[in-house]
Structures are given as C-alpha cells and as structure tokens.
C-alpha cells in the first residue's frame, strides 16, 4: 500500500485554483475588496488625524472580516456536496487518489484563490499606503495581510466541512449562510446576553465590561481575528472612538493564535471524517 501522495494533492490544488480563479462571484468580491481598500487607505492615509498605520489597519479590519469570510464561503460551501451531486467527484475518486489528498488539495487550491484575492486587494492598498504614509509601517501591514489570509483559511476549512457534511448542494448553501451570519450577528447576540444578564448601558459606555464579554470572542472566528489584530497593533488597550478598552489577560497573543488554529484545524479534521465516511 502506497503512502500519501503529494503529487495527487498538488494536481487537485492546481485544478481547483484554475477552475475557481475564474469564479465570477470571487472576481466580483475581489474587485469590491480592491475598491474599498484603495478608497479607504487613500482616505485615511492622506488625512491629517488618521494618518497612522493603526487606524488604517483598524479601518480595513471591518471590511476584511466581512469580505474574506464571504469569499472563502463562496469558494468552499459546495466543493464536495456540489461535485458529488453533479458527478464530477465520481470521476475524480475513480482515479488513483485518496480522499485525504482530494480534501487537502481543495484546501490548498481554494486557499490560493484567497491568497491571490487578498494580495490583489491589500497589495493595491499597500501601494496607496506607501505613497501617502511612507514605508515605515510595512511590517505591521504585512502581518495584517497574513492574518487576513489565515482568516480566509479558517472560513475555508469551515465551509469545506459544511460541504463534506451536507448531502446536497442546496443544504450546504444553508450551512454556508449560517456560518456567515453567525459571524455577522455574533456581537449582537453577545451584547443581548450582556443586557439580559444584568449589564447596563452606563457600564458599557464607561468601558466597564465583564471579562466573559470579551472572552466570548473565542466562539466567533471573525471576532477572534479582529481581537488578534487589535492585540497585535494596539497592545492590551484599545483606544478608539472615544473608548478605552482593556483586553483581558485570557486573550493573550499566544492564546489568540491557539484559538485561531483550533478554528482552522477542528473543522478540517471533521471535514476529513465526514468525507471519508461519505457515500459519493
């Protein structure tokens, strides 16, 4: 019995990249991404009060934590369920290739599409920043790009997991939407819990926030990502929009990275289990 075959994985990755780099939704979102980033980095970079790197990155954070998960979900949500339904997967799996190679190939190939998309967006943004702010903050900016790519891989891992679990394309659309909206409404849910459990608006305004409120970001990868970026740039205290918020000890940089890795690995392992057990 032969061992894991990296060549087969690479072949799958290349095919996924070639097929999906021409996905019209991905092209559209990347274009939107570029547009917003260029406009935003130009606006903040040239202004007198918002000129610093931190503000630029924090501003881009909101955009990328919506658009990158969206691109990842579009790429991954039906990569297994859709192909099983159409019949493309029958052909592939009749070839000398293992399911683990197909799965990892898909992750790498679709991930490369995200990398290209992020580099196009942030690359052009970076040019504008370099022209307006100067190149001194590049290290931070590059770190931000890598974190954004990692965010893309987390959502890719989640959406591939959905596509491996769902029997049909239509049900995996539901799964993809659920994951996306979970990230979007998570803060609202946590805030609701805060008020229901006796939190007051005054405390919130005065930045007296219980630790659990902050720690709960571990349940939402996009919030986790945002916290990690804050932590990487702003230290343990964030001062923005008149608030001064101290991030609890629990969310130390190392813990944040660990949680991000868990969010990447657990869905991937589950995807492998679902895919392995699946009848195509």
């Amino acid at each position, binding site marked *: 019995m032969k061992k894991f075959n990296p060549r087969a994985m690479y*072949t799958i990755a290349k095919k996924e990249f070639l097929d999906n780099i021409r996905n019209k939704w991905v092209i559209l979102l990347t274009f939107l991404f570029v547009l917003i980033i260029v406009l935003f980095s130009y606006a903040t970079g040239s202004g007198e009060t918002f000129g610093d790197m931190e503000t630029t990155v924090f501003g881009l954070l909101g955009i990328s934590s919506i658009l990158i998960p969206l691109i990842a979900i579009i790429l991954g949500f039906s990569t297994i369920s859709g192909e099983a339904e159409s019949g493309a997967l*029958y052909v592939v799996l*009749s070839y*000398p290739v293992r399911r683990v190679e197909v799965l990892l190939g898909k992750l790498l190939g679709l991930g490369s599409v995200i990398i290209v998309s992020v580099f196009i967006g942030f690359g052009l943004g970076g040019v504008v920043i370099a022209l307006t702010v100067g190149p001194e903050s590049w290290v931070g900016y590059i770190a931000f790009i890598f974190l954004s790519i990692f965010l893309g891989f987390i959502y890719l891992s989640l959406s591939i997991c959905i596509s491996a679990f769902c029997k049909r394309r239509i049900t995996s659309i539901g799964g993809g939407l659920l994951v996306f909206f979970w990230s979007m409404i998570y803060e609202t849910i946590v805030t609701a819990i805060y008020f229901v459990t006796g939190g007051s608006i005054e405390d919130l305004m005065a930045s007296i926030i219980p630790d659990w409120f902050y720690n709960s970001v571990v349940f939402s990868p996009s919030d986790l990502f945002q916290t990690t970026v804050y932590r990487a740039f702003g230290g343990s205290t964030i001062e923005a929009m008149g608030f001064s918020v101290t991030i609890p000890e629990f969310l130390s940089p190392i813990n944040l990275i660990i949680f991000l890795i868990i969010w990447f690995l657990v869905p991937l392992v589950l995807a492998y289990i679902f895919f392995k057990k699946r009848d*195509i």
Partner: protein
Amino acid sequence: MTVQGNPGEKIYINCSNCKKKGYFIIPSYKPVSDSVSIEINGLTKIYKDVRAVDNVSFNVRNGEIFGFLGPNGAGKTTTIKALLGLIHVNSGTIQINGFDMRKDSIEVKEKIGYLPEKVSFYENLTPVQTLNFFCELKGVDKTVVPSLIKEVGLEDAMYRKVGTFSKGMVQLLGIAQAMIGNPSIFILDEPTVGLDARWVRYIRQKIKVLNEHGATVIFSSHILSEVETLCNRVAIINKGKLIAEDTVANLNKYLHIKPRIEISIDGLNGKVPKVLENIDGVEVADAKGDILFVTCDTQVRSHIIAALEEAGFKVVNIKTIEPSLEDAFVKLIEGDT
C-alpha cells in the same frame, strides 16, 4: 441476409437475393478466459431501510465484455460505485485483479477507466485543461490529450469552457477521460445515454476495439439490443438482487423462451397450413402474406419443414429469430415480482 441462431447451430440458408444455398454454422461461444478480473462476493448495501444491493455475487473474466442489466433503480449504479470504492458497503468483498478494493484500491485504480452514469466536469476549465488534470492524476503523459479530444470529435470546442457544453459533449469528454492511460478494465455506466445515433455507434465500435486489444469491459445498460450484440455474458439485477448471470444464449435456454421461425412460402396468402396442427412442439403459428411465423423448439423445425413440403408447400426461405434479451428480461422480472 442476417442469420440468427444458437451457438453451434447449423442453419440451412437459401438466399432469395443472391441465390446462394448452403449450411451456415453459428459460431459457438468460447469463454474468453478462465482468469477472473472482477470478483464480487455477497455485496450488500443498505440505504436507510432500503437494500439497494442485496447479497450480489458475480465474476467478470479477463478480456470479456460483460453486460450489467436491469431496470432503473435496480442497483446497477450502486454496484458499480461499490466496485470503485465510491460508497461504503454493508457487507461483501470486491476484488479486482486480486486486489481487495476496500484496502488496496489505489494500485487497481491506475488500471481502470470509468465513465459514471452522471458525468460532469469543472465548468471553468477547457476540455484540454480537464484532460490534462486527469492525466496528471493518473500519472500519464499529457501528450495524448489532443488525440483523445480529436477522437471524440471535440476538437472544435478545444478551448471552450466545459460549462458551455451540451450534455452529449460532456458525455464524449467523459469517454475521452475514461481512455486515459490505456486502462485494462473499463467500467462504463450507461455509456450511450444522451448521445445521437452516430456516437452511439462509435461507442459500441469502441468497446469492441478496446476489447480486441485485450481490455475487460463491464458496462451497464437498459438497452437490451446493445448488450445482446456486444456482450459475452450478462448479469441481470432487479430490486437489488442478482437474478441471472450467464451468456445471452444460455439465459434464453434457461428461461425456456423458444425461438421464432419465419418461413417464407410461395402462395401462402395468410393462411396457416393445417399440417402444423399435427406436429408436437408447435406453440404458436401465425401467417401474414407469404410468411409463416412459428414459435417452437429448434429441433422441431426440421419436422415442420418436412411436413410443409410433403403437403405441397413451396418453402422459399427459413429464418430463425432467437429470443431477445428483452424477452428474457421481461420474463425474469415478471418471475421476480
């Protein structure tokens, strides 16, 4: 004229067109090989409460064309998917070339060409990119791709996205895909579905050619004439159960479906000669114009001819029509319900 009969049977021919007379012996079926290529034993697959495939066992020999027949939903595709390890079976063993498909499938898959019933490719790739991908996956030289595309007549669509293809074109690309790397085993699930007459002919011809070059071909179909003309042996599946596995000729014998004889007689005028009533073994007799149709055992035929000629009828031509697989099929399924 076409002559039909059981293997090994001697048939007297009196051709009205070329005026030739004489005996013709139907070639007898010889087993292609004794060695087994595909061996399925006690295969069972249960989906929820439905036994999609129920304790199915059969063998496919090296170098034969094996027909896999059954109505829609009988379990053909499920069996084929199990064969390729696409689904997990509840019980049973599958061996191809001696390899256990549940364990060592990678080695075997290098030698298999498969065309699924529902075939589909990647919509943003061109046929060239698609076949390049499959060549890489099989570890085969990509230089064969243009000739494969030409062979299935897709050279005009070489640089179009597969997403814009018609169903028939996708099917043809699927066939090109199955031929990558000169497989020694072809597994074709309904290969002629969705194709026009020209390509149906091409595929039937292709199956013969591949087989002549030594490949084992197993294909499923619900078109009986296709299976009948191409296959050495057939297996018939209904409601998940294998109900027959044999040669086409043996299947008919086993089912006691009698051949039909068409006897051309000058001046018959649609009347069934009375002499037939006295012959044992004549089941049905009917006349239309100058042709007399008789259903009977083959060995009774000479008695009929002799009796007719004795009674003064001028027999011009005799033609035996073997029961088709369709007859066998109908009878088997009726018996199964």
